[in-house]
């Protein structure tokens, strides 16, 4: 189980989270408790989107 803070550390992480939010079309991600473990299904989606935004 992973939290948003663990997936998106620091100022650069915060920007990556914004990109993931747009990629997934999930504005509600900004309201998630960043220290709360993500549901497994959501975590998979977030990781996949992170992989996409980290590609060129």
């Amino acid at each position, binding site marked *: 189980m992973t939290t948003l803070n663990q997936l998106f550390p*620091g*100022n650069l992480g915060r920007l990556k989270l914004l*990109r993931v939010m*747009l990629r997934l*079309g999930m*504005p*509600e991600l900004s309201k998630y408790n960043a220290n709360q473990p993500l549901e497994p299904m959501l975590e998979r989606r977030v990781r996949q989107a992170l992989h996409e935004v980290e*590609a*060129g």
Partner: protein
Amino acid sequence: MSNALQVQMSSNGRRSLGGEALVYHCNFYNYWLQKTILLVDGLDMGGVIHDAAVASAYACLKGLDAGHYSSAVKLFAKLGFGLMDLSQIDADGGTVTTSVSHYGQCLSAAAGAEFARPQSRFDAGFAAGASAWGHGRMSCGFEGTVQACMSLGASEGKISLRGRKPNSEFFRSYRLDQNNDGPVPPKTWGGLDQAAVDEAVARLQLVGNEEGLIPRFGVMLTQHFAHFYNRLSFEFLRRMGDSGMRIAGEHLLLDAGYRCAFHTFGGVFLSPEWESLMSPVVASKSDAAHAMASIASTLGWGRWRLMEVNERRAVMRVYDDYESLGYRSMYGQATRPVSFLAAGGLGGLMNLLYLGDILSGPELDSAYFEKVFEHPEAFTVHQTQSIAMGHGFSEIVAER
């Protein structure tokens, strides 16, 4: 022909060619802007990139009244976009090739990762707009499709063009009046007159080399269409509508401006040109901030004036702000400030000077970028006035 492609610079800092407003931007900005607007599926922002390029190229060539098809190829090279061959295009379309391409080859330095998608949509739009102009069609007369892109490993870029139906709703570029009806920018720094900085930058001849590229200050510059940038940014925000993601989108547009400033201003600070022109008149970090604002004021972005600058805070006013003027021309009066490039630029400038100690000559690499960006007291910026909202100037505050 070379005279016909001479960029005009007005006393208020506006750059134009064939009536089209031009602004300098680097490969970092071009990459991060494009990456941002393509994040959201379903907005057809790839189509916007293409059509904004069509409208800009077509309007510029029409405004130049250059008369000969080859001027489009020269324009592409002069502005730093690369080398394009339009000779195989006839009235029905055909194939365009690019042996050198800013978008195809120069964005990888900013991306730092392999590309999953072609980066040269702008080239396709430029080719379509130039061909429509060359064959007497309406601006939307051709549609370009990227068939091969050097960003994905192709040896040259290939774009197929085919005709498309007239569309009365098609994007139109706007033309900025060379006259300035806004307030006169105040003199806020005694180091060098703006006119002297304008002349010094003009002497640098920042135009495409024999490869049609502008490699300067450690980045790849383009002298680009202001309409193109504004259309991309503001159409992106408009199309997101009430999705709940507009603020996130604004943050990312601002981040593109930050990265632009970080790399371009950083490169200028470390350049021999800075050493010879500015070092003799710069005695402090605040002097350096004023000096860089006067250089930014030559790039077609509007006149930047720092009303206040110290290690904790800066207040910058932008007169003739190209983002606000573009927004107002295309979408009417704004309800929120729209000067994302300028805001990110000020944040980048302040972080470089006061957190990154750029005047000490650090290596401008990714480790330095990360160190500055992750600094616990990094500057944050907010926009307090906006020409797009009806104010006389745009104003941005940076604080930490």
